């Protein structure tokens, strides 16, 4: 405590000193040196392979440059102006929001249900846990091929079974109304085990003592869930929620493999599939970078709002 106050005092005194002296002082401060030593390898790698590319993306978004071309022109905010007038950008944003609003709550609820059930001492829970995690460990490229085959109305097994029980079959992935729900279903199927494992690890770190105390007080199962499980699981499910929202806004693989190039009538075009289409298929790197920067700003603001709304106490 004392140490901290002294450090703060010396920092405010040294405001007027030249930067080099201030940096040297900070580095001679043992906790700073220790902290930077622990962080050094990660900071270098993140700096070179994440932050430098971010800066480059920002610069690119202010230029006009096609990949492979030697001609680079500065165009100011032209890419951003073009974006505002681009209906496909707005459509992609709408689809991404729609996808997030369905996949995140449904996925989180299902994974919480699975985690809670598997936290009970049930027969065969190790087997169940392994089965639920199986889609997570499969490659999206392969998973998408399997699902496309299963849902194919002419040869697919699932489509055939639907027909047998009287559910009208259609080519879901080629129908503008059903392509997105089909992609959502596969996404939830693929990721539910991922969230479940994190929630389960959180559930298992809740001390048994609390449950026993609650039982002694006569709390029933629902009451124990509300008063013990939910509050103590809070840091874990906040983590899962934030990660889910971020990854939903960045959804790409399954959408691109199941319904390439935006799907029927662009109904499954998400922000990142549109970025990929502009940047890789059309090689318009600078416009793609601009959309990327906009997506980044949206995700950043959303995360800050979530942290604020949920009063994420661990942050400071």
């Amino acid at each position, binding site marked *: 405590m004392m140490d*901290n106050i002294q450090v703060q005092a010396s920092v405010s005194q040294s405001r007027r000193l030249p930067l080099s002296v201030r940096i040297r002082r900070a580095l001679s401060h043992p*906790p*700073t040196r220790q902290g930077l030593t*622990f*962080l050094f*390898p*990660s900071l270098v*790698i*993140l700096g*070179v*392979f*994440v*932050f*430098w*590319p971010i800066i480059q*993306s920002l610069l*690119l978004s202010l230029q006009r440059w096609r990949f492979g071309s030697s001609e680079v022109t500065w165009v100011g905010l032209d890419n951003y102006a073009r974006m505002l007038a681009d209906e496909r950008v707005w459509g992609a944003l709408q689809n991404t929001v729609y996808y997030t609003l369905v996949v995140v709550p449904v996925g989180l609820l299902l994974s919480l249900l699975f985690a809670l*059930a598997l936290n009970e001492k*049930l*027969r065969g829970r*190790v087997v*169940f*846990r392994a*089965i*639920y995690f*199986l889609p997570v*460990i*499969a*490659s*999206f*490229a*392969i998973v998408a091929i*399997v*699902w496309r085959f299963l849902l194919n109305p002419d*040869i*697919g*097994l*699932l489509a*055939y079974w639907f027909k047998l029980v009287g559910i009208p079959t259609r080519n879901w992935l080629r129908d503008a109304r059903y392509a997105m729900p089909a992609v959502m279903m596969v996404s939830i199927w693929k990721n539910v085990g*991922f969230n479940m494992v994190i929630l*389960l*690890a959180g559930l*298992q*770190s809740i*001390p048994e003592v609390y449950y026993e105390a609650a039982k002694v007080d006569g709390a029933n199962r629902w009451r124990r869930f509300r008063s013990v499980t939910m509050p103590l699981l809070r*840091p*874990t499910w906040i*983590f899962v929620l934030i990660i889910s929202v*971020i990854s939903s806004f960045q959804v*790409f*693989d399954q959408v691109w493999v199941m319904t390439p190039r935006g799907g029927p009538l662009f109904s499954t075009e998400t922000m*990142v599939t549109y*970025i*990929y289409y502009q*940047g890789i298929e059309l090689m318009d790197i600078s416009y793609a970078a601009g959309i*990327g*920067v906009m997506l*980044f700003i949206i995700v950043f603001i959303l*995360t800050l709002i979530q942290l604020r709304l949920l009063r994420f106490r661990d942050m*400071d």
Partner: protein
Amino acid sequence: MGTSILSHQRGSRLFFTATWIFLAIAAAAILLPFVWMVLTSFKPESDVFAYPPRLWPNIWTLENYTDIWQQIPMLRFFINSVVFAGSVTIISLFLDSLAAYAFSRLKFPGRDILFLFVLIALMLPFQVTFIPVYVTVQSMGLLNSFAGLIIPRATNAFGIFMLRQFFNGIPHELDDAARIDGATEFYIYSRVILPLSGPALATLAVFHFMYNWNDFLWPLLITKTTEMRNLPAGLALFMGQHNIEYGLIMAGATLALLPLFIAFLFAQKYFVQSIVMTGLKE
């Protein structure tokens, strides 16, 4: 009094049975595509397209599994996948935990700003930055090499964030006691925090291994020759050439999935060990 206890027990058994049935139905639904994948890998091509479609093969054959080794260099892809995913997992687990320790346990000016930068790194889709990243790797002369594949992945914002959350849950009394005894920070990191984080580390190891084992876009960008491709990139190549041979594709898919499944089964017992942490949390 007696009846209420009895009805409570009966209610509890009903609860467990209902839960079990719910879990079993969900498991069957989740498993179906994999069952189809594995069974199809044992079907001859004529069987795959038979109508009405059937889950069970009419004729069992190992043809797909023998053919696939001749059609593409599966062994080479396999070794590449092991080297790439294995190295990234080990190196990243070490560097992530070092950084997470600094964010969770060391106090120094600028720490929270640096942590915010890690969160920013987490929010940026890879698809946005991969052209600049590619240019950087190219300028270092690391294209088509394991170093070029591994070094950019040697630390991971998700891993740092996740481990920091777990480390924050470990009571400070433990490392404060060690600090009073004169232990160095590295000693506390390696002998106090890491041993208590087994479940978190095992979980993250599975995530890292899985993500890199299945990764397709990154190896496709960085590697140029067939000998450097990993399994998904190699199989994708194969799918391009043999678009309709589902039996072969499913045999390759099954072989690619098998090591991950085995790795997961081994790591599973560490998830359960998180109960060990329970006794320490106050």
